[in-house]
């Protein structure tokens, strides 16, 4: 499709289980971002990929969170041993170039709603 695609759109998981969230950015976009949106917390930056460079992981909340981007395109965010506080909407976004290059517009996916019970 033409936009950023995320899957699953909704995920309910039991506490302690691992989950994988997938993001397919807009074709040709070199930069990819993951954010977490929680009620009352706004948009929390998690991780940023620029092309094939090592990602900026400074926003990951704990070592249970990891992300990879294969071939400079699709990205997977993995949360291990999920906790109830991980419940949130996980948003993926992409831009043609990264923020280091210029003030490029970033385009968001619809998000993956994660509920940990």
């Amino acid at each position, binding site marked *: 499709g033409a936009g950023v695609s995320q899957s699953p759109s909704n995920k309910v998981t039991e506490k302690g289980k691992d989950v994988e969230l997938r993001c397919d950015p807009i074709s040709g976009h070199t930069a990819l971002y993951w954010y977490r949106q929680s009620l009352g917390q*706004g948009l929390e930056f998690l991780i940023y990929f620029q092309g094939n460079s090592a990602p*900026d992981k400074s926003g990951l909340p704990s070592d249970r969170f990891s992300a990879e981007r294969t071939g400079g395109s699709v990205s997977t965010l993995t949360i291990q041993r999920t906790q109830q506080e991980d419940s949130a909407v996980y948003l993926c976004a992409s831009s043609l170039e990264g923020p280091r290059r210029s003030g490029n*517009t970033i385009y*968001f996916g619809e*998000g993956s709603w994660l509920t940990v019970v």
Partner: protein
Amino acid sequence: AQSVTQLDSQVPVFEEAPVELRCNYSSSVSVYLFWYVQYPNQGLQLLLKYLSGSTLVESINGFEAEFNKSQTSFHLRKPSVHISDTAEYFCAVSSPFGIIFGKGTRLHILP
């Protein structure tokens, strides 16, 4: 480090009244500034952005924002709101270090 502060978590306003959503940022380097909007049950989308040049930028649906470097602000305004403007609005700052968002302001339009 950069940060973005949206002073109001919610703003109620009557239909056809003016509105201002406040945004302040802090940064030690030059920045680009954005407002994104999230309508109910939809994803985030760009409303307007300031990169350089004129400090007043406008969107196609009547919103405008003014970059004020001395006050480190980028407040969003609309002279007359409509029910369709009901949404959450996010201010964001882009710098060489990444894109940071504020916590958002929910705009409630009262009939």
